[in-house]
């Protein structure tokens, strides 16, 4: 069967009524998550894993996995749409990838062009989303065919590269990022060893035999951590929003933003593929690019529509691009995709080169649903943008306790253990403390998700070489990956040493 046939099957899956519903719920919640300051895509997706797990409980395993990944991915790219709303109306970005949008977006709102800015960012996001999905369709199959030839040593080095890339770009201090990565990997070793069946670090406690549940840790670190931060920093007063008058952009607006949207899409997509880089960096780069290319760069920061169109397209394209390493290689390049991967593993579905062969329903169903989801988002965001602007005014004092209640409910619904609730609360406090002191959390989650696979591949490779660690340097592919990994850590390190500003990825 060729790609088109698979895609048609994917559409058949995505058009099942419950999957349409799941995609709709996903993008709706995603937009809300993007609009609400304080909940980013990472905590939104983490918070929804247990909810989707209980919603899909009645379906057969593979269908359940498809439906929930459709919903969760919808939250992910939906948040990219929603993030622009607060940036433009309130001058506070709903999530970090929309920080750049505030520069020109809020200025436009002040000039009474809020509607045009919002609709251009929706159109840009749609065009970029479409481009990313088409590129994903074109690249997924060939990439996974290459990846399938990787041996355990190559895989080990590739995953190491993923970890190094995320650590090198996350947060202000590489040391802290590396500590978080190693800590994540160490936490992943708790529980039953999958190769030998030996219990590690369980101290005879039966609860620990299955290891620390990824779900509990992720919800605690991200969702609860952010909520605790909001309470502690008294950051829950609603701001005043700018008025939206005319929604549709003028012909001139469309003409001015066509180029930036196209460039933002392409740039964002390729930045998104790179591990460690992500939506935040993509939007940042595309803004700089537009400013450089513009004939009158002095208009940027004063309400130039290109300054809204380009970064908003780029962050959406990046979220599509980030799906490529996740689906084809099984290596998440960011915190959010790591959480998506954790969700897939919960359903016993291993992302990676074999995904397209073993579970075509999941892979192609997801891809097809992304096309549908983007269309839904365009429809949702153009006429309903005023409704979402209302969501901003939801008093956070009601939201905060409800998020805590949802976290506790969700974790208990899946784990049915008080132990996990205690772990959840502890992770919330730890998450707050670490994030407040500039310890990036994304590498920790990445380490936790990739830990077992890295270890298995390392041990498989070492078994074939009789314990000789040189195998990682002898295999050419593995050597290349390791060199790139080293460069990824050393270059930002050297740049920082020379006192240069290094763009860091806050979203992770």
């Amino acid at each position, binding site marked *: 069967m060729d790609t088109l046939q698979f895609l048609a099957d994917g559409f058949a899956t995505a058009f099942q009524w419950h999957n349409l519903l799941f995609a709709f719920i996903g993008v709706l919640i995603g937009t809300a998550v993007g609009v609400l300051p304080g909940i980013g895509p990472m905590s939104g997706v983490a918070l929804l894993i247990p909810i989707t797990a209980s919603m899909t*409980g009645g379906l057969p395993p593979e269908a359940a996995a498809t439906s929930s990944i459709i919903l969760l991915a919808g939250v992910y790219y939906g948040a990219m749409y929603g993030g622009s709303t607060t940036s433009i109306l309130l001058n506070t970005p709903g999530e970090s990838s929309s920080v750049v949008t505030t520069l020109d977006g809020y200025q436009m709102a002040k000039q009474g062009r809020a509607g045009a800015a919002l609709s251009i960012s929706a159109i840009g996001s749609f065009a970029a989303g479409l481009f990313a999905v088409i590129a994903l369709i074109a690249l997924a199959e060939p990439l996974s065919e290459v990846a399938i030839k990787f041996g355990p040593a190559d895989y080990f080095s590739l995953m190491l590269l993923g970890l190094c890339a995320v650590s090198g770009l996350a947060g202000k201090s590489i040391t802290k990022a590396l500590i978080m990565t190693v800590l994540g990997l160490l936490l992943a070793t708790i529980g039953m060893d999958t190769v030998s069946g030996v219990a590690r670090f369980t101290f005879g406690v039966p609860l620990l035999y299955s290891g620390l549940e990824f779900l509990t840790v992720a919800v605690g670190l991200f969702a609860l951590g952010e909520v605790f931060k909001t309470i502690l920093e008294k950051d829950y007063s609603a701001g005043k929003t700018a008025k939206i008058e005319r929604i549709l952009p003028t012909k001139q607006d469309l003409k001015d933003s066509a180029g930036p949207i196209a460039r933002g899409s392409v740039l964002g997509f390729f930045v998104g593929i790179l591990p460690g880089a992500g939506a935040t960096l993509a939007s940042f780069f595309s803004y700089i690019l537009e400013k450089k290319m513009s004939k009158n760069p002095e208009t940027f920061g004063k309400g130039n529509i290109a300054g809204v169109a380009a970064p908003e397209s780029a962050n959406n394209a990046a979220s599509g691009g980030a799906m490529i390493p996740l689906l084809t290689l099984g290596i998440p390049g960011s915190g959010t995709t790591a959480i998506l991967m954790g969700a897939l593993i919960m359903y016993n579905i291993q992302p990676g080169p074999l995904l397209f062969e073993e579970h075509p329903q999941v892979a192609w169903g997801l891809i097809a649903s992304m096309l549908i989801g983007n269309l839904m988002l365009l429809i949702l965001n153009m006429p309903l943008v005023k409704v979402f602007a209302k969501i901003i005014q939801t008093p956070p004092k009601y939201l905060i306790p409800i998020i805590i209640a949802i976290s506790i409910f969700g974790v208990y619904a899946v784990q049915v253990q008080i132990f996990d609730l205690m772990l959840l609360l502890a992770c919330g406090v730890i998450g707050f403390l670490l994030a407040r002191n500039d310890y990036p959390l994304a590498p920790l989650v990445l380490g936790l998700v990739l830990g077992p696979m890295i270890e298995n591949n390392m041990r498989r490779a070492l078994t074939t070489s009789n314990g000789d660690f040189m195998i990682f340097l002898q295999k050419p592919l593995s050597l290349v990956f390791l060199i790139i990994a080293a460069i990824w850590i050393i270059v930002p390190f050297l740049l920082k040493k020379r006192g240069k500003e290094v763009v860091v990825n806050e979203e992770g």
Partner: protein
Amino acid sequence: MNNTFDRYASLVFLLLGIGFMWQSTTISSSAYGSTVGPNIAPFGLGALLIILSLRLFYEALKARGQSGKADKLDYKRFLIIFAAAFLYAFFLETIGYIIGTFLFLLVGFQVLERGKWLKSIVISALFAAGVYVIFVVLLEGSMPGFPSWLS
């Protein structure tokens, strides 16, 4: 930022690293048919964590003198909500989901903003009952609804 935290954190990470290395020596060192046992990875990672924590300590020491920004944190509200969440989670199975959630939300709403009791009560009750109905009645999930001595 606050480098007192970094210094204490580096100590915690150092102890964690030592703990993992020490405990990994008690794990069997070989698996069937392989010279590479389940102890290698935690041992190596523990060592790495120790090195990194020393590096962090050094960095924190070097950065001393820069005082972190001192913005006041709202500990009172946080502690009340956290305690409420803890009690809610701890006694979830004994007092049941509906009562527990209702009480927790009510406390949470009132701690964040005093007054508007009616609105708080209505939202808490609707949320608690709504989630329970959707999850247990519609989706047939298992969740202790009411305490066993009530039903």
